[in-house]
């Protein structure tokens, strides 16, 4: 495998932005990531994005995105209808073939244009599950209930455990200019707030966020020449579970565990981990399956601080890479997820030199 590193990262988030469309979210992050990479736009070998047509409510959202990213003269380009963390995976594969040495990855989405928790019911089996119209939050609440009832590997899980995740995330989010939710709050205050989708409270759920992110990756010496301290991708893998939640043990996450195993993440030793935990209980499950107890989790505040769908997983990679490049961390884990109750998971291990 060729050594590949993240050499630049930019993000943009907003709550219910009524001023800017998707293109206006993409242009600044692409410009900043390209500028910070030190490469000219057309010296970047491969371009790829991740987005979801149902967020904008029409086909081919990525087509206008390409105009924003710049594609003249014509570029080698692809797109995944997935969180853009998977776009980064495809870009990493393109570099592994030897065909290109660098890639621009970007992801974007305006979740505020729709009732995203309701609309994403359309991810479910269209014949048997979707007609019942469970929202994303409804399904997550089922998973949280399973966790509270069944525990984690024999350890009890309580609503207080969920609130601890929320309190820490909200406090950390105060230091992140890109977080749209942040507050200095204690566990008892959180537990006094109303339960809105039992057993979840509003603060257990990632906020509906508009946003975008862009990353430039490069191989070997090119990365070393361009970046003082590249964040090397030491392992990256992704796995999927069966769609029907009735076939899964919801107190664990087999695909995240398997992706972690294949990415070489299970021996631990991480300074930080950025987990795409869109619900407080997701973090408990992920920490358990990835063996992260003792690691600093989501110093950015995580998805509970800002969760621009289709960019949020890529932001997790960017947040870890940013800290490694700044010298604040030596080794970190980034995670992305999509699908009901964390059906599909990606794990990326990053390290300094």
């Amino acid at each position: 495998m060729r050594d590949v590193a993240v050499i630049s990262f930019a993000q943009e988030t907003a709550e219910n932005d009524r001023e800017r469309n998707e293109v206006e979210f993409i242009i600044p992050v692409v410009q900043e990531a390209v500028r910070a990479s030190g490469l000219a736009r057309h010296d970047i070998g491969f371009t790829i994005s991740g987005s979801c047509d149902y967020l904008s409510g029409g086909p081919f959202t990525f087509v206008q995105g390409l105009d924003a990213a710049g594609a003249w003269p014509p570029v080698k380009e692809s797109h995944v209808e997935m969180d853009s963390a998977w776009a980064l995976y495809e870009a990493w594969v393109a570099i592994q073939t030897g065909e290109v040495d660098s890639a621009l990855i970007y992801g974007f989405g305006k979740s505020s244009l729709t009732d995203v928790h309701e609309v994403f019911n359309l991810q479910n089996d269209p014949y048997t599950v979707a007609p019942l119209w469970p929202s994303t939050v409804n399904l997550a609440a089922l998973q949280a209930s399973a966790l509270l009832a069944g525990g984690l590997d024999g350890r009890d899980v309580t609503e207080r455990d969920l609130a601890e995740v929320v309190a820490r995330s909200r406090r950390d989010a105060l230091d992140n200019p890109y977080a749209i939710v942040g507050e200095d709050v204690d566990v008892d205050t959180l537990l006094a707030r109303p339960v809105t989708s039992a057993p979840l409270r509003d603060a257990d759920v990632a906020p509906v966020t508009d946003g975008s992110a862009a990353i430039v990756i490069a191989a070997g010496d090119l990365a070393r020449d361009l970046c003082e301290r590249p964040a090397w991708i030491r392992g990256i893998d992704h796995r999927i579970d069966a769609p029907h939640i009735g076939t899964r043990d919801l107190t664990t996450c087999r695909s995240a565990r398997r992706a972690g195993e294949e990415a070489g993440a299970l021996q631990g030793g991480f300074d930080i981990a950025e987990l795409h935990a869109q619900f407080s209980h997701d973090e408990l499950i992920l920490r358990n399956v990835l063996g992260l107890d003792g690691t600093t989790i989501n110093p950015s505040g995580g998805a509970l601080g800002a969760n621009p769908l289709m960019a949020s997983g890529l932001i997790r990679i960017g947040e870890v890479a940013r800290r490694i490049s700044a010298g604040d961390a030596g080794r970190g884990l980034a995670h992305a997820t999509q699908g009901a109750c964390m059906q599909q998971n990606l794990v990326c291990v990053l390290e300094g030199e």
Partner: protein
Amino acid sequence: MGAVRTAVIGVGQTRHVSARHDVSMAGLVREAAVEALEDAGMGFDDIDAVVVGKAPDTFEGVIMPELYLADALGAVGKPLLRVHTAGSVGGSTAIVAAKLVMAGIHKRVLTVSFEKQSESNATWGLSVQMPFSAPLVAGAGGYFAPLIRAYIARSGAPRHIGHLVAVKDRLAALRNPKAHLHLPDIDLKTVEESFLLWDPLRYLDTCPSSDGAMALVVAAEDVADAAPNPAAWIHGTAMRSEPTMFAGRDQVNPQAGKDCAADVYKQAGITNPREDFDCAEIYVPFSWYEPMWLENLGFCAEGDGWKLTEAGATAPDGDIPWNPSGGVLSSNPIGASGMIRFGEVAQQVRERAGDYQVELKTGKALGHAYGGGSQFFSMWVVGRDKPA
């Protein structure tokens, strides 16, 4: 190209029809996948990763349907990627699968593309007016017709050229039992008399709307050498994209298409495509796109594409058969249509194309797909023999 030689060792596709009421989406994709695996002498357990492609999710009303299809495609516990690059997606998806093998990451990858267009209406699905943008409620035909008129004006092509393609591809489809349209009585007069949709395109100049799926098993050299049936070796892959809104674009003869062809020809050692290929499966959803792509892909000089069509050069018995399977004009499950092109040329060089098999001389063939506003291109060259 990557270090690992890569080949197609399994090809499967459904029959294509207007509406498959007998299967769910899962049933549809599984039909193609099982056929490809049987061809490759494998089961789902042998597969390392799955790559799914389809066009916009508005076509079926399911967001990221590959999530729901994970178990039907045997992907549980494995990596599953979902590609979406507009009309070129079937081709791009096959290329993404091939790269996983070329890069040495996996040895056996199953790739599947599909569209179940009967779940929705494609022209509607393509025509949603986006906020803050000009309404273009035209569908694909309405978008491409002005480009075709520009081509006619530039090249001076006679008006019947498109109709010749419409007849040629439908007659070719009669030899393909899986083609959607079987129109034995079609002739120039029938096409000319079919009703006008978007000048100059008449009803029979356009592709159908189909339910269907295509699947390929792509494998590394050592696996391909041990496969029960012949391999189609991948000699080159390329993708190119250009922007939608750029006044400097030539939408009739796009630069991205020319660049993509030049790249894939260079990888595969193609200097004269008309002579170096035994056949080509090219994305021709509207009849006039045959002469237009003949020029864009360098099979002739600019302005001469219609002359090749008129002379019968692209017919199954011509010197360079284009779309011997019947092409997109005979079957069009949109998200799969590109992969069908890629898979049909694999079948040709494997000499497994049945009644529409072409004679192999060079043993090489070109698969092509395009999408968006003539701005996304994917191509591959496959060969009977291993690349050097």
